[in-house]
């Protein structure tokens, strides 16, 4: 169904090429892009209302409701229901947007796991948990972090609202095949260095626009060694290097994580699916348009200092000096970033006071992320406002079953309801003008976490270490001796 058929005798193909070829409805030509079939369309409240409006205006239906799955995350409150049973929305507009999604899903027959449902969550945490994301699929959503689902060996990318309408109405998109970029991560990550550090290092290397026009495939022993959740963190931020999608070939790690999830096949159908998925990895000798190699062993915990995710460095490093930047445009960009961030070139970032810490988001809102933060918070107290926001209701239940909520609360941090929360600051969770926030989210753009706010992106461990220190800190100093 969604796997690639082995094509003996043909030229070796990459993972992307196999998934692409299996979904071409009409091949591309000089005149027209390919018509590409979409296996899974994830929908949320922010980027879908205008698309449903187009369906209504043109008298169209959702073509394949079974391939469409909705949840609510961006505008939703992360505080529990009030005493009157109502959700504490930030404002009437947010509530109206959420209500509109409920109405649209009801009118068009789309399966919705909305606010208050046991499966609700950040769309890119929710889709994989449902087993809806599977190897070899094409997955789209009106959200750039759809790249997350590439961790399963799916071709997954963000689309705009017009395209959301196209997929609702036709289950297809008009696309030209992107170029391929192989990122090989050789060696092994050192203890205390994880997937978030790895992806920040990769983005710093490629540059914030360096992957434009490409789909990244992450390869090499350090990638194979990553857990499924770590692979999602890695693929999630592919867009921050400008690549619409990032992919990791499926393997036993993938299959073990997927087995038993609600939407995956069972019995002999599962065995057949796994056999098909095993044909997906890139063939030996497959050619990529570009290749980059990263030495995993050389990496340290990373943190951003600027206003785009490419402006990242080791947490032990000093803020770079714009004067050392030869390119005038890049120099101006760095100067503007340091001015906005209020950071001084040449000074270490360690010890930089912070005001808020946020652990959560589609990048780092999964169970392993909650564990990583809790391991640092265990037996310690936070010095600054700290929000820990599980990525989904399932993550929340699993974390609570392990007692992580108690660790978080005992440390003086807030344990919230699932949602995008302070990653995008649409639901009232935000930082104030001038505040510094160490955040496990994906974007440190100006004002991203609240107008005038200053974001430093890092891993859950580094964020939790900052919460405990009240300043940027090296998490390895707190977890030495920990397993």
């Amino acid at each position, binding site marked *: 169904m969604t796997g690639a058929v082995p094509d003996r005798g043909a030229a070796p193909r990459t993972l992307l090429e196999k998934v692409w070829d299996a979904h071409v409805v009409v091949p591309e030509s000089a005149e027209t892009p390919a018509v590409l079939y979409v296996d899974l369309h994830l929908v949320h409240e922010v*980027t879908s209302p205008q698309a449903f409006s187009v369906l209504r205006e043109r008298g169209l239906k959702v073509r394949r409701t079974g391939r469409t799955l909705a949840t609510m995350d961006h505008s939703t409150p992360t505080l529990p229901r009030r005493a009157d049973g109502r959700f504490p929305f930030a404002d009437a507009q947010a509530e109206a947007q959420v209500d509109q999604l409920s109405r649209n899903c009801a009118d068009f027959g789309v399966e919705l796991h909305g606010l208050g449902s046991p499966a609700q969550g950040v769309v890119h945490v929710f889709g994989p948990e449902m087993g809806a994301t599977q190897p070899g699929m094409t997955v789209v959503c009106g959200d750039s972090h759809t790249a997350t689902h590439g961790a399963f060996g799916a071709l997954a990318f963000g689309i705009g609202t017009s395209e959301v309408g196209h997929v609702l109405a036709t289950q297809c998109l008009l696309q030209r095949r992107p170029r391929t970029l192989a990122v090989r991560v050789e060696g092994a990550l050192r203890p205390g260095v994880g997937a978030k550090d790895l992806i920040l290092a990769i983005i710093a290397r490629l540059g914030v626009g360096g992957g434009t026009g490409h789909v990244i495939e992450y390869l090499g022993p350090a990638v194979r060694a990553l857990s499924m959740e770590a692979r999602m963190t890695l693929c999630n931020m592919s867009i921050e290097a400008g690549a619409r999608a990032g992919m990791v070939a499926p393997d036993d790690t993938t299959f073990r994580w997927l087995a038993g999830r609600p939407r995956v096949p069972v019995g002999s159908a599962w065995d057949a699916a796994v056999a098909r998925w095993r044909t997906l990895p890139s063939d030996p000798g497959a050619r990529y348009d570009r290749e980059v190699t990263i030495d995993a062993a050389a990496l340290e915990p990373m943190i951003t200092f600027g206003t785009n995710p490419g402006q990242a460095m080791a947490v032990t490093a000093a803020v770079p000096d714009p004067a050392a930047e030869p390119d005038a445009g890049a120099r101006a960009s760095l100067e503007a970033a340091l001015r906005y961030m209020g950071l001084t070139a040449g000074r270490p970032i360690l010890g930089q006071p912070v005001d808020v810490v946020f652990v959560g988001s589609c990048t780092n809102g999964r169970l392993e992320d909650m564990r990583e933060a809790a391991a640092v918070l265990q037996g310690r107290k936070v010095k600054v406002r700290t929000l820990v926001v599980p990525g989904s209701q399932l993550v929340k239940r699993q974390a609570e079953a392990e007692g992580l909520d108690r660790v978080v609360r005992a440390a003086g941090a807030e344990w919230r309801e699932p949602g995008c929360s302070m990653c995008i600051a649409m639901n009232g969770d935000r930082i104030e003008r001038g505040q510094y926030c160490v955040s496990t989210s994906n974007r440190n753009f100006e004002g991203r976490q609240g107008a005038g706010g200053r974001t430093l992106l890092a891993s859950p461990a580094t964020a939790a270490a900052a919460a405990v220190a009240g300043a940027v800190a090296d998490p390895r100093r707190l977890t030495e001796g920990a397993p």
Partner: protein
Amino acid sequence: MNPIQIIESRTVVLPRENIDTDQIIPARFLKGTDKAGLGKAAFADWRYAADGTPVPGFVLNQPAAQGCAVLVAGDNFGCGSSREHAPWALHDFGFRAVISTRIADIFKNNALKNGLLPVVVDAASHAALLAAPGAPVRIDLAAQTVTLPGGREVHFPIDGFSRYCLLNGVDELGFLLSQESAIAGYEGSR
């Protein structure tokens, strides 16, 4: 969508590199359920002070920017989120084209569907445009050329299908709907 053939306008210049979609339209303006009227939110955090008053030095607040249809921006314009609100806001403000040396993929796709022409030019032509804010330019979509302030014409790339759609005011949904038999055939073959 109104057809685009020729765009003649003075330019507004934002030389910053990597202008992301959170700058083009901050997330707090994404809570609506329609696409009209977003021009007032374009670059809101650069245009307005914390108390809501316009920042006088910001280029979009200057009288010369009013009525300009061409935005010239630094490298890698439109990086970040998939929010189509970004081209909606720019179009509603009055822009019909954005010129840069690199334009992010999702933003570019969204712009093409909303009558906002993404124009990628070489570094030298870009430098000439950055150095001459307010200069008149002429963009000919059919010929795929930009006429620079000095009169030199430069070619820009655009996908043939997107060009056809923009020139004729055709939307892609209509084309996809016309592929129904191929789509049904594909579904039947799996």
